[in-house]
């Protein structure tokens, strides 16, 4: 065997993202790897790439035990990754990017200097291999996203690897370039290079893969060979797997007729296109899409965190001309962002300060006057009880020491204290334990029963099916499908998100 992954497990804190993975790969074959968002595909690849180390288990690569502790270890061993997010230096030329880990040298009078000629010849060879006909001195930042992706692939080839891992390599390629890429992959295979191809595009995976493995919730649920001749529906079933249990609490109210939030033709260059939808009072509206579909980008733009280039937003039948976070907070619209550490918490501050943050103006006449901390503290205490946070002290413990679930509850408490009428919540339960998940679902239901509306963005279909009245599916920056509650069906929703029109 060329590569053997034996009983590999990976935990991040209390959360285990890979459980007991076993996988074997012959030299010169292609493995297709599929799974839902967060199933553990990228983590598995990052382990091979030396970015993460497994918590237990071992890897045999070319008959030797393989324990990379850094990306350069993996590169040296002959493993290259083509990342989904491009890892290029936009300020440097293609030539410089391709030699970033080791520019060829030559000696001139005892002095070691860069060997531009050798470098250039190699760059030209690599570019023609990926079918990119462009001047090697072009600055990467000036290239189109498809060209950048091809440069990224050329970079992976530059070390003459024996194993190449592609993670969603053709998301921004045109049909022609994609065909070229597939030809290249077949050619590499014929030269005995082994390939792991990760994609949401199941047709591609079936077309390329000599072997196809499905990951779900960190578990390798099935591996098929080309001879099995399986179809996309079988793969989708494997990806979703488990039955929807009765984990989600019941909500006792239905959406009302009144529309409280509406967008019309929202547009942001290169990100969002013609997004139109409405949200009813007491409705929980779900927003599903794969990574890169533009879900978070959309809610951030609506909230005024990123720029909008067109379209209109209305709140309670009035157009919102200046959608800024400060204005939304005043209108009692809250946004819980997807990344807690990035823009959700004041990590070094106490729970009290974190929770008070968005409500301070409500507890004083104007920014220059005294904050009514007595009243504020009383209400913080009430909110904290409602969200069931486990903590030692409100005023003497920085929130970064809390668990992920409790941190999420702190942010939720911050917004509940503002008494929102609309809660936009991006990945409400990412990376948190099951108990906290239930608490959050339960709380959302209670709030909705009391009149709140929710826009819930999630990459977990189950969560949306369990919680929402209606689900919108986003793809390539636009809303492609809408599912009503009676039509909720995991495979249909996933298929709607996966399917490409080309």
């Amino acid at each position: 065997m060329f590569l053997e992954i034996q009983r590999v497990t990976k935990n991040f804190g209390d959360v285990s993202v890979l459980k007991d993975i076993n996988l074997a790969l012959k030299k010169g074959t292609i493995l297709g790897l599929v799974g839902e968002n967060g199933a553990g595909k990228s983590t598995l690849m990052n382990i091979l790439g030396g970015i993460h180390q497994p918590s237990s288990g071992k890897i045999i690569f070319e008959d030797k035990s393989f324990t990379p502790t850094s990306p350069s270890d993996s590169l040296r061993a002959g493993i290259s990754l083509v990342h989904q997010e491009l890892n290029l230096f936009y300020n440097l030329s293609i030539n410089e990017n391709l030699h970033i880990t080791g520019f060829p040298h030559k000696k001139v009078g005892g002095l070691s200097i860069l060997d531009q000629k050798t470098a250039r010849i190699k760059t030209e060879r690599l570019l023609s291999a990926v079918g990119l006909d462009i001047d090697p001195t072009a600055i990467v930042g000036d290239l189109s996203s498809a060209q950048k992706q091809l440069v990224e692939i050329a970079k992976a080839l530059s070390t003459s690897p024996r194993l190449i891992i592609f993670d969603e390599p053709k998301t921004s390629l045109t049909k022609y370039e994609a065909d070229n890429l597939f030809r290249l992959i077949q050619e590499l295979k014929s030269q005995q290079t082994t390939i792991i191809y990760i994609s949401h595009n199941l047709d591609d995976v079936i077309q390329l893969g000599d072997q196809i493995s499905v990951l779900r919730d960190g578990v390798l649920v099935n591996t098929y060979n080309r001879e099995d001749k399986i179809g996309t529906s079988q793969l989708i079933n494997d990806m979703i797997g488990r039955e929807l249990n009765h984990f989600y609490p019941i909500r006792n109210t239905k959406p009302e007729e009144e529309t409280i939030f509406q967008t019309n033709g929202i547009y942001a260059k290169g990100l969002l296109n013609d997004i139109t939808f409405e949200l009813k009072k007491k409705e929980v509206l779900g927003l599903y899409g794969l990574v890169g579909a533009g879900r978070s980008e959309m809610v951030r733009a609506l909230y005024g965190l990123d720029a909008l280039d067109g379209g209109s937003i209305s709140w309670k039948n009035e157009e919102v001309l200046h959608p800024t976070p400060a204005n939304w907070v005043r209108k009692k619209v809250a946004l819980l962002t997807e990344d807690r550490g990035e823009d959700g918490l004041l990590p070094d501050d106490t729970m009290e300060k974190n929770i008070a943050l968005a409500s301070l103006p409500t507890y004083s006449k104007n920014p220059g006057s005294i904050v009514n901390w007595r009243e504020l503290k009383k209400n913080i205490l009430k909110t904290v009880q409602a969200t069931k946070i486990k903590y030692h002290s409100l005023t003497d413990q920085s929130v970064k020491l809390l668990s992920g679930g409790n941190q999420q509850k702190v942010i939720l408490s911050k917004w509940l204290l503002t008494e929102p009428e609309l809660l936009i919540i991006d990945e409400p339960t990412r990376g948190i334990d099951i108990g906290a998940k239930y608490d959050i679902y339960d709380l959302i239901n209670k709030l909705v029963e009391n009149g709140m509306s929710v826009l819930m963005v999630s990459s977990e279909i189950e969560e949306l099916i369990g919680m929402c009245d209606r689900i919108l599916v986003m793809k390539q920056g636009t809303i492609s499908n809408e599912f009503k509650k009676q039509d909720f069906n995991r495979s249909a929703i996933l298929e709607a998100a996966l399917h490409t029109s080309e």
Partner: protein
Amino acid sequence: MRKNALFYLCLIYYLVAALLVPGFFSANNSWSLIFNLLPLLIAAIGQMYVILTGGIDLSATAIMATSSVVGGYIMSSDYGLNIPLSPLVLVVGVAAMLAIGMLIGLINGLSVSILGMPAFMVTLATMIFFNGLAVWITGSQNIYNLPEAFNNLFYTSVLWLPIPIWIGAIVLLLGFFILNKTVLGQWIYAVGMNGKTARVSGIHVGATTVFAYVFSGFCVSMAAILYTSRLETASPVMGQNILLDIIGAVIIGGSSLYGGKGKIHMTTLGAVFIILLDNSLNLMGLSYFMIMIIKGAVIVSAVLLNEWKQKSTV
């Protein structure tokens, strides 16, 4: 204990100096300590506001010089404004000094928040610009003959205490009040702690940042008023050597240069420590340059200590 370490350090230093340094423990030197402390403390409080937002105000001493010169031109009998009534000239002069400081602060604040320029670069530029301006318009000459009442600020008492002590107390209380009691104060901390979170939470990040720089400009001009009165001279090179003292007081007080962390009473202790150090070393007869070397070393140690504290709490 760790919380009060700086207080005890100041206390012990004071006691040791009182015992060992001749002339330290005297009425004369005690007044000198207080009068030296006041302007530094006031400027450091302003600086701390800026540092709390995650910025830095290198233009502090340039503001001081500009403010001093502007006040001098208005109030000195050598120059042309000739406002007849002495109380009025005082009011106009002092108001103009504060206004110019706040204006430069506004320029700093807007450049940082709206244009998104790095605070370090912006205030370095305004520092050079206004240092140059102050020297250029005065032809590098001091301005004398300020009104008697202005020069006597330190010798005029209201309710048994000299006016500068009242000014210091008021700025100190104002700084404390805004930071600890008002929404604005909470915003300043939040902006420095995590600007992105602050923005998502509906905080006016830009306006908060601008306020910090304007407040720093206000404080520094206040300090310029005290220095100008004490020297009985408006000087275009005023405060040129105390920029490090101002920033040092904030840092010795334990504020984080990354923003979001710092307390008024700690900055006060930081200023006290610098003044004790400066004063005692002076009395020991060390040269000006030797004192600079020691102060530099102390401030670097404080930064190191802060870094170490930061890491050990992660």
